[in-house]
């Protein structure tokens, strides 16, 4: 494991599997009557969030606290200082506070990379712009492996706003590394320019892909990141790319429906599908804590030297 977790694109297969295996052990802790470990006692984890995110921040906070680390929530939202400068100032402040790890979410792609060059501790990317969200991809992979027993050879379909989705990017790289075959389905306007260079198949027809999917991952349409009209109406989007009850019926019996949350029910996913037995939405949240515990343990649990 490297010193930072910034993206899944540069995460090797062995390291990815190490995270998943460690997360499996961490999940067992949740079954013990005392769900707290002394492992990271005396370590400080700073949650540095430049963007709203209740679930990811809380997940990291719970993970760090279960490992007995001290957690500081540093919400930097609304700062009017220019981005580069303020980030560096913040980095120096955290450095002075003795942060062992900084969990960073930032609206600008690449901000955690920058941060990593300024601090002595480990940096965990908790979502940067439209770039990556590695722990989400790791928890998705962990969920698939727990439910279906493997990742290699799985046919995973990622549907929706791929253009703005760091979750999709992180999943594409990680799943390719772990040997799954990924298909992205989206309106042409919501696919990034470089998608042809990704290790994925591209389709515009959800109905054709669903019967051949072991996992279908629905993405939220990120209205807040859209500055132009990417599709005519929400109703049209929903009818062509939403996962409703009829569509879900075309999935193989064992197939999973995943969503990173927050869901827009009725838009990209129907309520009945989101609450069905094949949906892993709630599991993903629980698995998120296990995976983040694993990441924090692997980054902070040793002497800090590269193994």
């Amino acid at each position: 494991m490297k010193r930072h977790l910034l993206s899944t694109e540069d995460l090797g297969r062995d390291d990815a599997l190490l995270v998943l295996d460690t997360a499996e052990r961490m999940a067992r802790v949740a079954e013990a009557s005392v769900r707290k470990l002394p492992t990271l006692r005396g370590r400080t984890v700073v949650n540095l969030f430049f963007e709203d995110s209740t679930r990811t921040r809380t997940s990291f906070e719970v993970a760090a606290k279960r490992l007995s680390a001290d957690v500081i929530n540093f919400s930097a939202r609304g700062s009017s200082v220019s981005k580069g400068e303020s980030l560096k100032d913040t980095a120096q402040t955290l450095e002075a506070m003795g942060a062992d790890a900084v969990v960073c979410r930032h609206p600008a792609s690449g901000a955690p990379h920058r941060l990593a060059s300024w601090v002595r501790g480990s940096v965990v990317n908790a979502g940067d712009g439209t770039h990556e969200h590695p722990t989400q991809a790791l928890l998705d992979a962990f969920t698939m492996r727990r439910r279906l027993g493997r990742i290699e050879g799985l046919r995973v379909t990622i549907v929706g706003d791929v253009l703005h989705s760091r979750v999709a990017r992180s999943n594409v790289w990680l799943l390719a590394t772990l040997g799954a075959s990924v298909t992205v389905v989206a309106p042409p306007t919501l696919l990034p320019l470089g998608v042809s260079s990704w290790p994925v198949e591209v389709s515009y027809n959800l109905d054709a892909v669903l019967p051949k999917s072991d996992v279908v991952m629905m993405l939220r349409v990120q209205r807040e990141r859209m500055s132009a009209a990417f599709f005519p109406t929400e109703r049209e989007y929903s009818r062509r790319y939403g996962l409703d009850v009829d569509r879900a019926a075309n999935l193989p019996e064992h197939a999973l429906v995943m969503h990173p949350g927050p869901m827009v029910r009725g838009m990209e996913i129907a309520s009945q599908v989101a609450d069905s037995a094949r949906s892993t939405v709630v599991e993903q949240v629980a698995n998120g804590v296990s995976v983040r515990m694993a990441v924090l343990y692997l980054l902070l649990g040793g002497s800090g030297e590269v193994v």
Partner: protein
Amino acid sequence: MAAAAPGDPVSRRPGAARTVLSADDITRIVSRMAHQILEKTTGGAGVVLLGIPTRGVPLAHRLVRRVHAVEGVDLPVGSLDPTMYRDDLRLRGVRPLEVTEIPDGGVDGKVVILVDDVLFSGRTVRAALDALAAYGRPRAVQLAVLVDRGHRELPIRADYVGKNMPTSRRELVAVRLREVDGGDGVLILPPTSGPTSPSGPTSTDEPSGRDQQ
């Protein structure tokens, strides 16, 4: 580590690995320990065995099989990974985690026997006691080890000892078990010269800050 295989010509050279317990010795010792457990716990009433990974786990299973062969009772058996409770995590690179498997019925009110291959500093057992507390409150905790090599750094002793083996602190005791290593045997390896850790024979009861057995 090639020099460690039992019967290897290298082991006859002075200063090289020497075999101190053969496969047959281990079988006899495990059998005796199983009898001792039955004797001390009056037939194994309320006993749960928890092996400390890696090699404590197959040892615990062997003891349970032996107990079954003698008295026909099936004792619950599982594993307990103390890694995240160690006090020396920051002294070296991050350690991989092992499996914790508490048998059905839990540990509350039970007599838990922790099983490990080598007792050395006692720090692993200390960590295991803490780990155990997260899973419940046993009526009593006992300790069974295949080899006790002394050099305790904590006030911990074993209730069942396979073999007392006085060693120098710098020597290395390597327990080989069929289930993990493909063959049974206990070897003493000569002191390692550098700080580099030997890759083959490792178990988890290490003295503080070193990576030796």
